[in-house]
């Protein structure tokens, strides 16, 4: 498995609080990875650093075969380079239709002038229909995104990421607020997607992670505490102490 993302010895401090402390971390192509950790462990900050929202004080983030450093790029550029991000709270454009939400996310030219003169076409329509099928929202195509249920919004946001055709998906708490059947669909969706791209899932719910059945990284106080398969993690003494045992 070749390497896709390499977070190298990164530290970041907020007002004296070390949110990330010399953290190193790798993701391979088409890898499915779960990240867990108690509140304040630095999970969201790590995502912020990878996607360019937060600049680390030291360390580097390297991307792709060329190992190009992501630190000097804007959020928009990093997204264009192939890293998609789903937020903790589902963020979709509630006042626009499901279709329009996906249309905006399609991997087309993002220059304002070409966006202004963009004409809807058959190829893009087909792509959107496929996405709608993938995220089980075919019959909600014309709905305003604000009318969807919480779980459906989560799917729509995943669909919006897929529309960008990213190589790496960062997914923050995808199962939050979902019913049991919705969770099952989400697990299958993520597993299915990880066959063609790398996915990092941040999740609190141990049962959900057990279902994903993938490699797990445990963060604690801004650093990696343990890494391994779920059974190894759940029997690790340190992990039990800081996280599972509580």
């Amino acid at each position, binding site marked *: 498995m070749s390497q896709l993302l390499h977070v190298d010895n990164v530290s970041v401090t907020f007002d004296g609080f070390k949110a990330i402390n010399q953290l190193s971390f790798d993701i391979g192509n088409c890898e499915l990875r779960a990240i867990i950790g108690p509140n304040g462990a630095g999970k969201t900050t790590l995502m912020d650093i990878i996607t360019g929202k937060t600049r680390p004080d030291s360390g580097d983030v390297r991307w792709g075969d060329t190992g190009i450093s992501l630190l000097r790029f804007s959020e*928009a550029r990093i997204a264009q380079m192939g890293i998609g991000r789903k937020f903790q709270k589902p963020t979709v454009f509630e*006042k626009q239709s499901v279709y329009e939400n996906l249309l*905006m996310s399609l991997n087309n030219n*993002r220059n*304002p002038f070409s966006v202004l003169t963009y004409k809807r076409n058959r190829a893009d329509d087909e792509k959107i229909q496929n996405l709608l099928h993938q995220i089980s929202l075919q019959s909600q195509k014309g709905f305003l995104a604000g009318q969807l249920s919480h779980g459906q919004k989560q799917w729509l946001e995943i669909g919006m990421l897929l529309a960008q055709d990213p190589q790496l998906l960062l997914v923050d708490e995808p199962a939050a607020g979902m019913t049991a059947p919705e969770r099952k669909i989400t697990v299958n969706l993520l597993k299915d997607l990880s066959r063609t791209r790398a996915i990092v899932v941040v999740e609190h719910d141990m049962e959900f992670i057990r279902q994903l059945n993938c490699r797990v990284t445990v963060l604690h106080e801004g650093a990696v505490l343990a890494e391994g398969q779920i059974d190894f993690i759940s029997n690790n003494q340190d992990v039990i102490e800081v996280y599972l045992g509580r």
Partner: protein
Amino acid sequence: MENTLFTKYLFKHPSVLVFLTLLSLFTLSVVVLAEGFGFGLISTSFVKTLGKTLCLCMVAIAMDLVWGFCGILSLGHFAFFALGGYMIGMWLMYARTELIVLDATQSLALPLTKTEITEAVGIQIFGVVGGSEIPLIWSFADLFWVQLILVILVPGSLALLFGWLAFRSRVNGVYLSILTQAFTLALALYLFQNDSGLRGNNGLSGLQNIPGFDDVPQSIISIWFLFGSAVVLGIVYLLAHLIVSSKLGNIIQGIRDDETRVRFLGYNVESYKLFVFVITASISAVAGAIYYPQAGIINPAELAPIASIYLAVWVAIGGRGRLYGAVIGASFVSLLSSYFTGGQAPDISLGFATIRWTEWWLVLLGLSFVFVTLYAPKGIGGLFDHIKGK
């Protein structure tokens, strides 16, 4: 081909069709009823007021694009409006003064040289601020087409520079609003100076006199301008509608509702904001260039910060996020405002006190703003949703 594309577009978007039809009907009936043309039921000054109102509708559309659709509460768009007025005003004033100078010296045995003409024009225009030199910024004032290009170029570049600095630093929300207020105030203070080259607080005057058309009465000129204003308003409305119904319209509304999400979809949010800011500044400038020849005078007081705040109030009352809402708000409120502050509304005597509308109009406006915000957050335009819903 072009024509069928246009008609197809109109039928796909009935609101544009309705708007353009109403605008044509309005213009036609004013022309027929106006003093200069036929029935004489509408006075020339009222024709001018209506023409000016159409120009204010254009700025309101610009404000709706930038605020209602893109979420940037700019409180400085009247600066661009006034700058557009100044640019065309320079030509109007220069060209007309030159004609007057030539006229007055016609009987001289020796015709004036070019330098002498320039000097005479300089004294005529700048004598009032104690100067006679024509400032550098008036270099092209005798060339109509150049000044016409400057109408868009000067406010447009200023918007580009201001927007680039502000958006690049990610200045957002109320901080950006304050910055735009500071911008328009600074520009007004600069123009108030006598050596700014634009006649200080005197401003530019006599703009209602179009050079070369001295023998055409104002009653006719006012109709030309009303007609011109209506045509440009129609074009601006269509243009704005094309923008908001395109994919770019989706993106800017996305920026309004969730800027971060748009950014993480890979869009460079700053360049979109800049695009909308510059386009709307240019629309405002064009509106100003048609407004001030009808107003006759422009001075730095037009750039007062309060003017741009009123603009936001119009759009809020009319209903932001819908183009016809902006038009309704601007026309409704500005016409009412000129009715109440023009001394036409009868005072109400309460015995112990008298309500003078010239003073109480602002109270009324303030109350209706509060009322709309509380009870009709979608504005007057939002009422159409109820009609459509039933």
